[in-house]
């Protein structure tokens, strides 16, 4: 049996930070306000530094009260992130941050809740929590730092490492087929999925901005370099010439492609990247981030290849649907009949069948 929930879900177009207290009276925060007094302890050259700087630089833009921002992380190098931000934060346990953040977001509408996780934390030990947070569409912003390796445990392969990758735990090469985090998220009904890169601050910031704006779960995969155990894995995307040939920019309403190539769709719906000169204009893919059907976004995510020949970059999907936390609050609000009094609790305890024994 199903029932009509009969609730207006939060008005369409509500932003991710609706309900979170904003700064008033013209005050504004700066990057410094979001920098904690803790010494940052990542390895020199780690991509996490750039992401931290971008996040610290971006947060003031939200105009939120600092005390209403919370970062929750799991375990791994990336999960040290909350210590370096002067907000509320929790460095939790391996893989569980999405579950913990769900409980927090469900009970506190007035918080902007961010999850920082890595490829091992989110996709291996915490895979279950990640897909269920996305399915429920909890209003969380999940930053998944993907360096395709386990860093904190010193160099074992991760669920995004390539087949054949030689690591400490795969001396003869990894046998596992990797996850594509974007495909996984889309398959898990994610309402917002994007990919960006540690070294492209401008792009990273623009994606963070859109994620924060989105009401619901936002999964942001961030390609991040581990200089110690998987150095240079994304270097081809950082070289200007190589990047221009490989990165397929995703912009809503625009053709998907590079300066030289463009993505076309064949009769069976599969996508391919062809030189612009050879493309049938009728088959050129125009990106629609708000398409209800995630198939097109999923097809774009499948253009990835292990050699990074084509890498779609940007927002794959950004659609509105009711969030779990808003809906839960609405269910409670519509069930309530006012402030709960002692008499209400007395009546609840008594239930329907009571009898009285005289003194």
């Amino acid at each position, binding site marked *: 049996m199903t029932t009509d929930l009969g609730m207006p879900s939060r008005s369409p177009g509500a932003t991710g930070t609706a309900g979170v207290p904003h700064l008033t009276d013209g005050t504004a925060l700066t990057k410094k306000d979001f920098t904690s007094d803790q010494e940052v302890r990542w390895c020199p050259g780690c991509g996490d530094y750039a992401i931290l700087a971008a996040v610290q630089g971006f947060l003031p833009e939200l105009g939120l009260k600092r005390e209403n921002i919370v970062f929750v992380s799991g375990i791994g190098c990336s999960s040290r992130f909350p210590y370096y931000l002067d907000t*509320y934060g929790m460095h*939790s*346990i391996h893989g569980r941050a999405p579950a913990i953040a*769900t409980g927090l977001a469900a009970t506190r509408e007035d918080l902007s809740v961010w999850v920082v996780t890595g490829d091992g934390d989110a996709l291996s030990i915490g895979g279950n*929590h990640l897909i269920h947070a996305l399915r429920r569409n909890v209003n969380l912003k999940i930053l998944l730092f993907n360096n395709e390796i386990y860093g904190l445990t010193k160099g074992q392969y991760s669920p995004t490492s390539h087949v054949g990758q030689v690591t400490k735990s795969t001396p003869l090469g990894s046998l596992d087929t990797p996850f594509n985090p974007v495909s996984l998220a889309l398959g898990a009904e994610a309402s917002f999925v994007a990919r960006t890169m540690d070294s492209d601050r401008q792009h990273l910031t623009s994606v963070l901005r859109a994620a924060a704006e989105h009401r619901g779960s936002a999964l942001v995969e961030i390609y991040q370099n581990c200089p110690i155990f998987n150095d240079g894995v994304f270097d081809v995307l950082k070289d200007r010439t190589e990047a221009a040939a490989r990165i397929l920019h995703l912009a809503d309403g625009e053709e998907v492609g590079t300066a030289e190539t463009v993505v076309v769709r064949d009769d069976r719906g599969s996508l391919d990247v062809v030189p612009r000169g050879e493309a049938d204009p009728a088959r050129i893919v125009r990106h629609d981030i708000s398409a209800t059907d995630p198939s097109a976004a999923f097809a774009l995510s499948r253009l990835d290849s292990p050699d990074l020949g084509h890498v779609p970059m940007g927002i794959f999907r950004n659609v509105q649907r009711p969030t779990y936390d808003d809906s839960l609050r609405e*269910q409670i609000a519509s069930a309530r009949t006012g402030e709960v009094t002692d008499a209400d609790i007395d009546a609840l305890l008594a239930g329907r069948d009571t009898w009285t024994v005289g003194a």
Partner: protein
Amino acid sequence: MSAKLVQKLDRVVIRFAGDSGDGMQLTGDRFTSQTALLGNDLSTLPNFPAEIRAPQGTLPGVSSFQLHFADHAVLTPGDAPDVLVAMNPAALKANLRDLPRGAAIIVNTDEFSKRNLSKVGYAESPLEDGSLGSYDVHPVALTSIAVEALASFTDLTRKEKERAKNMFALGLLSWLYTRPMDGTEAFLKAKFADKPDILEANLAALRAGFNYGETTEDFAVAYEVAPATMPAGTYRNVTGNVALSLGLVAAAHRAHLPLFLGSYPITPASDILHTLAGLKRYGVATMQAEDEIAGVGAALGASFGGALGVTTTSGPGLALKAETIGLAVSLELPLIVCDIQRGGPSTGLPTKTEQADLLQALFGRNGESPVAVVAPATPADCFDIAVEAVRIATTYRTPVIVLSDGYLANGSEPWRLPRTAELPDIVVEFATEPNAVDDKGQPTFHPYLRDPETLARPWAIPGTPGLEHRVGGIEKADVTGNISYDPDNHDHMTRLRQAKIDGIADTIEPLVVDDPTGDADVLVLGWGSTFGPIAAAVRLARATGARVAQAHLRHLNPFPANTGEVLRPYQRVIVPEMNLGQLAMLLRAKYLVDVESHTSVRGLPFQAGELADVIATAVASVSDVPLKEAAK
């Protein structure tokens, strides 16, 4: 009105037994409600298979519900039924060994077909081969009489009519024990409000059963059990799981905290999720999580945000939650973990009771990871223990594990309703101001600066300006809460966390000993759901002249401060447990007292008679006063 004889009894134990699909739990439940409203004291024991519908008519498919009611205080569901209602041969066979000679058996003869008999290995019908000669057998064609009574319901199939046989049986038993049926009629009206046909059929079957008792010559006597003398007050009947749910809601209300439950379905804890999910009106938020770990994780996240985070589970789930409970120990946040224990290890006996998670609750985490552990003694005590758990969790900012079990969860008893306004005060104050000054003389916040009395750290929730801070599972420096790998600091913090939990003993009630003669040499000490059977056994033993003291632990970590003093004077201390001696091991280790274990892990509560023998033997060994023959 009946012209039949009415005889007074002081107590009766009835067991309803049938196929899993026969509605025995509902029948038992309704009979219990009718009995409660009459003012008898009572105790119930539902016993059902883990399979939802085991193969029909087989021994593994038998589901039963036992009720003990009396005109005096009742402590257990009763060792042996006075009356067995057996709906089929399997129900008869599975329960016969529990019946004392002379017990009444009301048996549904319609189900005693060759096929059903052979399913359970009866070569001949026990109703005809004389094997039940020492029982008072009442053969009743329950199904066909019920179907006959519904002859006028032409729109119902035979199958639908047959389904009303449990109501016919309930009607018959209601007549036999002079129970009013208006409560059940009202219940049926609510349940089948939108199925008028089914409602009328059930009501007709119920009345037909009652009338059958009144008219048939097979039942010569009806019985009455007078109301019990109970303390003045308003009562309801309540199961442990419902009482626990209500206790959580009432405690959250007293503490002015929103209640958040993160839970994954597991037997026998799921009814708490079901109950709380229906209480959104009271501001209760429930989330059915993707797994046990997410259930406790979401609860901890809610606690971090200033809610009362609760998770509910059974033993296997507690194992999965262990790492998150360890995080809560490190974060020093309130968290309520309800473990409704069942038979283990592994999947074990999902629907049967056991209390073998005690050591898991105390020690089942990595590192030195102390948490408070409490255990309710009776179904109604689940309410009080929930309130106590919330008091401890919020006062000391600690996880509290509540160890209930399947027996308490599904069993029921009358509960004298408390007044909400008179429940213990639970005062929760969130931190609002900086509590320290930094080296530049600026106000700052130290998240691990403790209350000198309770050693609790401040609960500073997100949204509080100026108190922004980070917590985590890595060891923290004392006071500041910054990451610290310093050896001395870790030693200090480990001892502080332990001292905080030990200090809870300062605010819990001392262990009380019940020793009417004041000179007992033997103490029986229990914890959790064994309270009823132990108290009943002690009552039986005392009736034979045995001088025996009883005490019962509701706090398992820390123990009440006087526990050692209580134990030491006795020549013998008997500790009955439904495990292999877990509390006994703790007591021996902590107090160097040579306590003796008496254990049973049969998935069922102790029988009072069996425990009484253990007690009598112990008393006899240290006393030269001869005991009377045990009163049966």
